[in-house]
């Protein structure tokens, strides 16, 4: 069985878990299950849906797609190759309200940004200095690629209802594609706020992961960090397995 998974840190594994070699739920499947996990710490629902759609179209051997939605205010931005000085491919950058999110698993981020003249300070780990990339002119990456304009457009020029309908429409697109290609599809979410809710047209979503692990207690990282710890990921894995059996 081949499963494609895309989500945020709840599926990628947050940095603390990765640093100590802990396993996210996606890594707990039996060896006879082939898992492609393209999740990203800080990834948006738009990214997860886009990549699921691209993968369903491109691959004929997928059996299951698990699409995990994240915070609605996160987004994804497209940067054309011609906007870059050296890197010759179009790239996507995910963003949150306070900045871009780097995809270290998929891109040689530091090399690419060094070539583009940006140097990193900080790592952005919880309790540590925020990760910032700055060029010789003192511009941050966010300055150069108009992060503020993007946030302004998302927050001030788009209604929440329309954003929800956009995400929901992409969910329905993915559902149509999966149905057409005979791929089983499971929608899940980090927490309930990530699930677009429009009467009649919202597809089936599993119980949100934060309901499985709680906001505090033995299944999360700490009182101030509600990411699932190893036990939390195991509980999520068991729940996802039970949901897959129902498909």
């Amino acid at each position, binding site marked *: 069985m081949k499963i494609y998974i895309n989500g945020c840190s709840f599926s990628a594994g947050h940095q603390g878990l990765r640093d100590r070699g802990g396993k996210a739920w996606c890594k707990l499947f039996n060896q006879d299950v082939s898992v492609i996990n393209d999740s990203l710490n800080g990834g948006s629902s738009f990214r997860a849906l886009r990549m699921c*759609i691209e993968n369903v*179209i491109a691959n004929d051997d997928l059996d299951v797609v698990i699409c995990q939605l994240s915070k609605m205010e996160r987004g994804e*931005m*497209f940067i*054309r190759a011609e906007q870059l000085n050296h890197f010759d491919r*179009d790239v996507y950058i995910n963003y949150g309200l306070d900045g871009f999110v780097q995809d270290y698993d998929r891109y040689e981020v530091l090399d690419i940004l060094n070539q583009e003249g940006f140097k990193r300070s900080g790592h952005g780990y919880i309790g540590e200095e925020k990760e910032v990339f700055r060029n010789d002119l003192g511009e941050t990456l966010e300055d150069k690629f*108009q992060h503020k*304009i*993007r946030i*302004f*457009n998302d*927050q*001030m*020029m*788009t*209604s929440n209802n*329309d954003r929800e*309908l*956009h995400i*929901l*429409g*992409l969910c*329905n*697109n993915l559902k*149509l*594609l999966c149905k*057409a290609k005979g791929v089983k599809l499971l929608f899940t979410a980090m927490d309930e706020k990530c699930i677009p809710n*429009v*009467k*009649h*047209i919202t597809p089936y979503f599993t119980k949100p992961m934060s309901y499985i692990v709680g906001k505090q207690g033995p299944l999360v990282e700490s009182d101030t960090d509600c990411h699932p710890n190893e036990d939390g990921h195991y509980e999520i894995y068991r729940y996802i397995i039970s949901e897959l059996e129902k498909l």
Partner: protein
Amino acid sequence: MIVYVNGCSFSHGHNALIERNGKLWPQHLSNNGYRVENESLSGGSSHRSLRMCMDRAMRHGQKNQEVDVIICQLSNPHRGEFFHQDLGMYINYITNRFILGEKEIEVFKQQGFTTRKDTQFFNEKGESIEDVYFHKNILWHNTVIVPEWQRQIEILALCNNLEKLCKIKGIKLLFTAMSSICVPSYHGDMTLMPYITKPMSHIIGRTGSLVESAEDNHPNEAGHYEIYKYILSELKKL
């Protein structure tokens, strides 16, 4: 039978036709026993049509809000609309200006945009509505930052939302389009595309006896009658 129509000038009527009281295809439907609610807007975007059709379908089932058929006419994908949070209203735009309905014009007049020159409104400082309400920023954002395919898949997503809602609510739905460039396509993959009728511009042509003039390919009265006949034949198939 109640039919709700939303589209651009091909459904609303362009200015010259309206000024000479020419008949639109939705009006021919009215004369044929259909009760037509037409909320199209000249210069309106596909996003506006889809949003308003969705709202209309949502209201179906409430008192005096029944609807039997929704006809959603898609328009040029480079047009768009945005929601201005402070004003609490949607504004449609094309490449060089905003497209304002009567309600929007009234709101902007209250904001001091009282001087009209052609299609634009200015305030006492000589600023246009487009200057003050970020037309350039919005256009730049939606044409440079958002790639073409992303706009296409978003329109498809909204079409599929509407199709799903209409199916659940038992409303018949017909998608049509101004021209072939208005038909959304995701890298040529047809799986996501709902059924969309032959584009209106294919029915009337770009030049000839069914359009306004050699420079203006809006349907004239005869063109609207041809579109009406075609839409009627499509409605019968639903």
